[in-house]
């Protein structure tokens, strides 16, 4: 299962122990980061950060350099130690982990992708990807098998024997990503992974990431200083400034209710129509039935949710079509099979709203939003799309 991350009142300070103690007091008294540095010499990188990252979410933290975002992401695998506060992964405190438990957490549950790739230049591409498995003493055969699969996933199948120095920047980052995916982590940390790449490659990599995210259940924390990038890929976004979180929300929240002038400035040159996607505005569907329900059960479900139709999924949650209440009236059928309508518009959750609109004009019902595995992720109505674009 993907990981849920809870950040509780997190502060990360750099300096001597004694000075940090004084700085923490100053934080509580409400001094600014600049004042604290002047007074104590302590650098406050994160100050009272609080938020949850939901399982399977693609959570983006955006901010200018020096805003504390890179420090923050490094606390999620304890490369940086919190000075105060706590981080919980699925409810379990990271600070409470023993040395062995922390090692196992890093080996099995979490991976990181770095801005300048952090590749081992003395090893070939394949050997780089093997590294996380190698240190877990996974046997050579399995290691190579999994590494090849990871390389294939990022499109570098034919490059396994090259040295990193022979690859372009984009390809190096793909190696970094393959290495991070090889142990199939439930939490993926990406520290400005595309900032060192040129714009064209960057966009390509963003799309690949969305694709990857769509076909797996994995929590991703992504750091960037580029608001366009943040909005393009993020389910939710946290904007950081001077060690603090200024605003957290979906891209739509940022457009609708910017928290202050700083946020307004920050999103001023973001092109909304190229940002908002079905996933950003979809709702959780209530009127969902499974194919093996009886007609009677389905009727009850529709009455409970006050709708005249329902979405049908199979036991694997794959979307099949929909049924209309009228058809089911007084039926005692033991399965919903014969009522199933399949000629229904569906949307991919990464479809841009402007494209979605074209596809939907004829639809009277809500439209199902699916991920790559055909799982029902949410629903959207035509009006909602128009409203979102008109904001």
């Amino acid at each position, binding site marked *: 299962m993907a990981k849920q991350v809870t950040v509780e009142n997190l502060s990360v300070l750099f300096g001597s122990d004694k000075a940090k103690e004084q700085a923490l007091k100053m934080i509580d008294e409400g001094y600014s980061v600049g004042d604290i540095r002047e007074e104590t010499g302590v650098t406050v990188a994160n100050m009272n950060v609080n938020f949850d990252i939901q399982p399977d979410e693609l959570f983006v933290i955006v901010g200018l350099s020096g805003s504390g975002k890179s420090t923050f992401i*490094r606390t999620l695998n304890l490369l940086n130690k919190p000075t105060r506060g706590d981080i919980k992964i699925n409810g379990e405190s990271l600070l409470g982990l023993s040395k062995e438990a*922390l090692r196992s957490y*890093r080996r099995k549950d*979490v991976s990181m992708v770095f801005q300048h790739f952090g*590749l081992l230049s003395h090893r070939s591409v394949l050997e780089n990807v093997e590294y996380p498995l190698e*240190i877990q003493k996974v046997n050579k055969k399995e290691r190579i098998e999994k590494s090849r699969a990871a390389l294939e996933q990022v499109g570098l199948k034919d490059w396994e024997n090259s040295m990193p120095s022979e690859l372009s920047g984009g390809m190096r980052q793909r190696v970094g990503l393959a290495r991070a995916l090889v142990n199939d982590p439930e939490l993926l940390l990406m520290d400005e992974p595309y900032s060192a790449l040129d714009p064209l490659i960057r966009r390509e990599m963003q799309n690949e990431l969305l694709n990857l995210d769509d076909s797996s259940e994995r929590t991703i924390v992504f750091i960037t200083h580029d608001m366009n990038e943040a909005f393009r890929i993020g389910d939710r976004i946290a904007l950081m400034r001077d060690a603090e979180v200024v605003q957290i929300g979906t891209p739509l929240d940022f457009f609708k209710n910017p928290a202050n002038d700083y946020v307004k400035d920050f999103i001023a040159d973001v092109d909304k129509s190229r940002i908002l996607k079905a996933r950003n505005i979809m709702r959780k569907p209530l009127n969902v039935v499974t194919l093996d329900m009886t007609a009677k059960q389905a009727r009850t479900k529709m009455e409970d949710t006050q709708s005249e139709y329902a979405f049908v999924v199979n036991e694997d949650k794959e979307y099949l079509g929909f049924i209309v209440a009228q058809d089911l009236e007084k039926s005692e059928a033991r399965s919903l099979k014969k009522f199933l309508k399949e000629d229904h518009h569906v949307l991919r959750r990464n479809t841009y709203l402007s494209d979605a609109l074209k596809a939907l004009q004829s639809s009277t019902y809500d439209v199902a939003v699916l991920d790559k595995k055909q799982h029902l992720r949410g629903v959207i109505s035509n009006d909602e799309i128009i409203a979102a674009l008109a904001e």
Partner: protein
Amino acid sequence: MISFPEQLVYRISRFIDLGVDWVLDNFRGFFRGFASFVNSLFNIFDTIFSSIPWWVYIILLVIAGWRLYNIKVGIGLGAMLYAIGMFGLWDDMIYTLIIIFIGVTASLLIGLPSGIAMAKFSRVERVLKPLLDGMQTMPSFVYLIPAVTLFGLGRVPAVIATSIYAIPPLIRLTYLGITSVDKEVIEAGRSFGSTSMQMLFKIELPQSLPTIMTGVNQTTMMAMAMVVIASMIGADGIGAQVLVSMRRLEIGQGFQAGLAIVFLAIILDRIFQGIAKRFERSVTMDG
């Protein structure tokens, strides 16, 4: 001129003598044993090195030069080695080479772990740094005094003085290599859950190998310099030839031996630098 007053003179040499005497009285067995160990090591390598025909050395050297640089360098190095033999100094050269070989190997065995410890523990760094500074400012023949005191005259103190004199650059460059590994590479290693041993052997040492090889090269060069001076305490080799010619004022022979030393130094330097470059190419990202 007014001299320093006699009543303020206080000589510490006497205490040092007492200390040395004490060490010698109590650890005589240890030093004897150690000396005979080094002696037998020397004999083993002497047997090996002397059993290889001279032309094998030259051919191997030509191939090494060719592989590491180009055929011209290979032939040039081969010609230098041939010249040493032509001067009638082949056996002396082998003798010198064995002292260097044992000395540098001992430096490696002590220097590598010391450099690593220095990079890992700030306490070790605080102790070693001034010590290394001191060692590098000390004139080379000062190293001969304790070596002779503890091990007498001959090749054993020569080997020991050589390895101690030559060790600082290796420790320094191992330290430098490990502490200057790219920060993100270190973070990557840690983020995947490497143990500290895995960090050292799979990331830090391979990444700092070019720097360490430069250290090995410098150490070899210093060993080379020391081995010449060590002839003063009775070690044979090319250095001894220089010393003998100097005493007898035989300018021609002295010059010839000096030239042989230069040739040997160039050969060793080229070979080690070539290897260091190889490693460097394998770890640098751009280029």
